[in-house]
């Protein structure tokens, strides 16, 4: 159960021999993720924590036709090519961890992926995890235990913080998705929430937004228009952020008078979504919604 990834997910790691790729491959294997192969051009024949490495995605998929997902640690300048390679090899889920991918590259490969019915998560994201045993990402394993809370977030470490708060309050996670901190990302709140609606193992959703853009506002309108919904608790990072400054994430910027935390918090409340002022309020709000 859970959304998008589960025990049937068979994973390819693009950029597996790099420092990040090999480091996280180890922890994903420990968590139980089924990683079948890796790709790094020129490194064919090597093994990374027992996982065979190929030069091209086509070779990897030929050797392991079960592969249905790719997780990417490729350096930013090469991400676009790696995404096209994965899509053209028939892979239907691509999770991009890499940071600082040029926006014009993202626009193009995300539009291409859509035409080919391929789901892209990221770039600049921590990945996706369905406890107890499927992780395509870089989250700390011990914080993610199975349960009935869906978690979707624009941020990385803040997602782990919230998983930690849930864990401490005996709440577990159905699936947690980091959708990424860039202005242009493959999958947004609305699309992930839609998956959660259809997922029997998810009873409520925590939505972690931040300053920049209007994804939170658009989600609120979408939520408001639904007949059948699952309860949502929201959190918005960046209430103290100044206008016109990028706060770490490329997408976290209040610009042209748009994207402030205030506007997002107000909009959530307007459509009846409770908003936590502090991370430690999230489990409290969740419990009160679940007990209704």
């Amino acid at each position, binding site marked *: 159960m859970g959304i998008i990834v589960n025990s049937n997910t068979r994973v390819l790691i693009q950029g597996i021999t790099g420092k990040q790729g090999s480091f996280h491959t180890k922890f994903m294997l420990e968590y139980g993720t089924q990683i079948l192969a890796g790709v790094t051009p020129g490194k064919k024949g090597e093994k990374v924590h027992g996982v065979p490495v190929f030069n091209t995605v086509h070779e990897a998929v030929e050797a392991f036709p079960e592969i249905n997902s790719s997780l990417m640690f490729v350096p930013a300048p090469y991400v676009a090519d790696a995404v096209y390679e994965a899509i053209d090899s028939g892979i239907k889920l691509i999770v991009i961890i890499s940071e600082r*991918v040029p926006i014009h590259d993202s626009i193009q490969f995300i539009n291409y992926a859509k035409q080919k019915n391929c789901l892209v998560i990221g770039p600049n994201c921590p990945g996706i995890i369905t406890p107890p045993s499927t992780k395509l990402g870089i989250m700390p394993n011990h914080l993610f235990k199975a349960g009935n809370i869906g978690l979707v977030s624009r941020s990385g470490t803040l*997602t782990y913080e919230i998983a930690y708060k849930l864990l401490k309050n005996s709440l577990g996670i159905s699936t947690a998705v980091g959708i990424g901190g860039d202005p242009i990302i493959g999958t947004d709140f609305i699309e992930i929430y839609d998956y959660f609606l259809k997922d029997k193992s998810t009873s409520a959703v925590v939505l972690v937004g931040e300053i920049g853009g209007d994804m939170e506002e658009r989600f609120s309108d979408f939520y408001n228009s639904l007949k059948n919904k699952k309860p949502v608790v929201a959190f918005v990072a960046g209430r103290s952020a100044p206008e016109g400054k990028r706060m770490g994430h490329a997408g976290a910027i209040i610009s042209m008078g748009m994207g402030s935390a205030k506007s997002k918090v107000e909009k959530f409340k307007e459509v009846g979504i409770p908003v936590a002022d502090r991370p430690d309020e999230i489990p409290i709000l969740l419990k009160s919604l679940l007990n209704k």
Partner: protein
Amino acid sequence: MKLYEYEARDLFDEAKIPLNKWIVAKNYDEAMNNYKLLKFPIVVKAQVLVGGRGKAGGVKIANNEEELKMHVKNILGMNIKGEKVNSVILAEAAQIKKELYISIIVDRNSRSPLILASKEGGVDIEEVAKKDPHKIMKIKIDPFIGVRDYMVRRVESFLSISNINSILKGLYFTFKNYECELVEINPLALTDNDELVAIDAKIVIDDSALFRLNKFKNRISSELSYYENIARKYGFSYVEQEGDIGIIGNGAGLTMTTMDLVQYYGGRPANFLDIGGGADAEIVYNALSILLEQDRIKGIFINILGGITRCDEVAAGIIKAIKNKGVNKNIVVRMIGTNEEMGKKMLKEYNIDVFDEMEVAAKEIVNLVYKN
């Protein structure tokens, strides 16, 4: 990265977008030597990156040489919202019948470039969008087909003009070629002769694409403060705020939330500083040093949730900074995750309080800084 108007005008010239005749001058003499290329009345425009220069007195019209001398002298060296004016543009004032607006932006929602055209120019487009949304037309550009003639015809019909083809195609050329987040002409002037002329130029380039934009990759970003430039060199992101409690966190979202919590408990965050994922002792040392150096900062709150970042590395960096820089400020650390026990033990030897919960730690730093 935001470009100065004169840099944006250079790119518009390259794209053959018609501009009112202009020159740029870095100093008074240069302005006076070259202005004769232009006809009066001449507009003198401060070159700054902050918005609202007109209201701040950074744009003036000169009808003769006397007025020109005065305006150039006044505007050069002016300070607009904390930014020093180092150069001015002199441009021929156009005979304007009507002010319009045209831009191409990166649209997060459709994940595509978007043409924005407005019947009302010379004002904030956001204001028009709020007040008179019917005056704005939006056209999504499929990145695989680009700007097509039919889009040009739609814009022309909407704006009741007939000659925007080369401008729109030129804008898209610039947008693609220089990997922009925004290319904007506001206002786009319709002159008395029914010609279209750009009388301002605004361009924002995607920072992530700078590595392959030879023209701009070595340009030092003058938008950044002294410490912001240092931080960029060391490889972490730092944004200056006006408060007195220094903030260090790992991850953008967690660091923002750390600032928010300090503010929630009544404190004033002095900065945003994200050491990123997997930071080693050296990065932490450099980060903390930047904050320790600043007198305005009275206390520092370090918030680490260790994953790929190891708490013992963070502790080692903190200790090095304390040893080398001395401590004249309150420091509160919140630290959980990878090698947490080791990190806590190391810091305890230096009498630094370590907390498990960020809410408790935030309250503590606020109490420490403001109680005296």
